[in-house]
């Protein structure tokens, strides 16, 4: 049986929790810690924020994010996908930069408005 330990980040308490193969969680001081730990071992997800190239008079990079948290295992694949995109100003916040990235159903969105 393997046990994984982690710090719960749901609230500022930061409990050091452990979870085993049967998804038994220890060290948590509340229910949310259990949910967090189970999610971290079954389907951990992360928001990715990064940049893509943009043709603009103001800057050479446009900041972007995933429309929602994406599987942690896909982080570097998403980064690769971002490397192949080049946008052209004008771009507005929330414009779709990549639709349905890596077939996840999640989009890459612009987080900045660059008009010229």
């Amino acid at each position, binding site marked *: 049986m393997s046990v994984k330990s982690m*710090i719960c980040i749901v609230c*500022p308490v930061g409990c050091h929790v452990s979870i085993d193969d049967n998804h038994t969680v220890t060290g948590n001081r509340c229910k949310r810690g259990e949910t967090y730990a189970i999610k971290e071992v079954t389907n951990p997800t992360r*928001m990715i*924020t990064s940049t893509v190239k943009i043709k603009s008079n*103001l800057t050479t990079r446009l*900041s972007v994010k995933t429309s929602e948290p994406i599987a*942690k295992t896909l982080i570097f694949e998403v980064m690769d996908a971002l490397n192949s995109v080049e946008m052209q100003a004008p771009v507005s916040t929330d414009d779709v930069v990549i639709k349905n990235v890596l077939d996840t159903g999640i989009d890459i969105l612009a*987080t900045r408005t660059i008009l010229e």
Partner: protein
Amino acid sequence: MERNEGETMNVDIVVIGGGASGLAAALSAKDETNSVIVLEREHVLGGILNQCIHNGFGLHVFREELTGPEYASRFIEKFHAENIDYKLDTTVLSINKPDDCFIVEAYNNEDGALTIHAKAVILSSGCYERTRGQIKLPGARVAGIMPAGSAQRYLNIDGYLAGKDVFILGSGDIGLIMARRMTLEGAKVHGVAELMPYSNGLTRNIVQCLHDFDIPLYLSHTVTDIKGTKRLEEITIQEVDENYQPIAGTEKKFSVDTLLLSVGLVPDTMVFESMDLTLSPITKGAIVDHTYQSNIPGIFACGNALHVHDLVDWVTIESEKAGASAKRYVAGEIKEERNNLTIEPREGIRYTVPQSIDMNNFKEPVTVMFRVTNKYDVGTFTVKQGDTIIQQKKARFIAPAEMESLMIKPEQLIDQTTPITIELEVK
């Protein structure tokens, strides 16, 4: 000789800096009766938020999680909707008050010299990063040592990575965020060293920026040597004792080409060099009363130019108050004569902002922000006048990196003259 007089303008309120702080201040300072202008040295509004592309902003102000540029966009849109005047690419060099109004001297490459006569000035020019020289980092002077914020700008705005093999000194949020950002873009981050026995960053950033990428965090460690001929080649870190002195025999060496410094931020008050602005030796920003007015009547300060904040939300809230005060000041609603009752940090408290309450203008409750000197799980903040306790507040997970606040109401005060003190009691 034909003389170019430069442009001269008259406005009620000049706001120096168009980042989070300046935008919020301008928005609350402007009404139908007054004129406000924002001077921004960059080519775009939004300030440092434009390069803070990570998320986590806005939880208090908008009740949602935004990235830095998104947070800035919301204010930039409002700002444009209100049609407030502004000048981009414009650097303020000096402020003087020869007689009854301020003269702000600014430059840009369209107007040349811009002379602005103003009744009030809001200093919202943000902060700058502490440098290698200020922390007296020993070792060789080679290329590859850079403040973390500079590296962030090169990466997120310009699209260039500062280095391939990276070490980071300082575990504040900028350092942690940059550890992840550089890793995502293809650099190898070998570790983060923190002088203190605890990190100054959010736990979430420790987990998602370091643990996710197996980047080690060395607490109670600092960089004690730097080697290299042209570019950085090797750094040495050492564990420190309780007086922050390196312990012999604990040396660890890392072959890296880049050292990012995330060792603190300092309010930028440089434009007031020629005026007698009183600065706090602790915050390095202006000393203000509860209206955010400095010792010089008509000069207000807010945001990171006043004291360094950990959350932009607090910058916004504070700057809105400073802007509102400036508006009242030019409308003649703040009594010129001041009667300051000081707020003094005592046991366990590093500083407070504001540092005083102007009793002549004290009608509404005042929020006092403060930082503690050490990390504790639980404690009680006690506000006193002399020996009389006027307020107590329990708090959990107290840390120097996290700003605390409490509210003081006019009716709580026992008199108009006994200084207010704030102290922290821990079990």
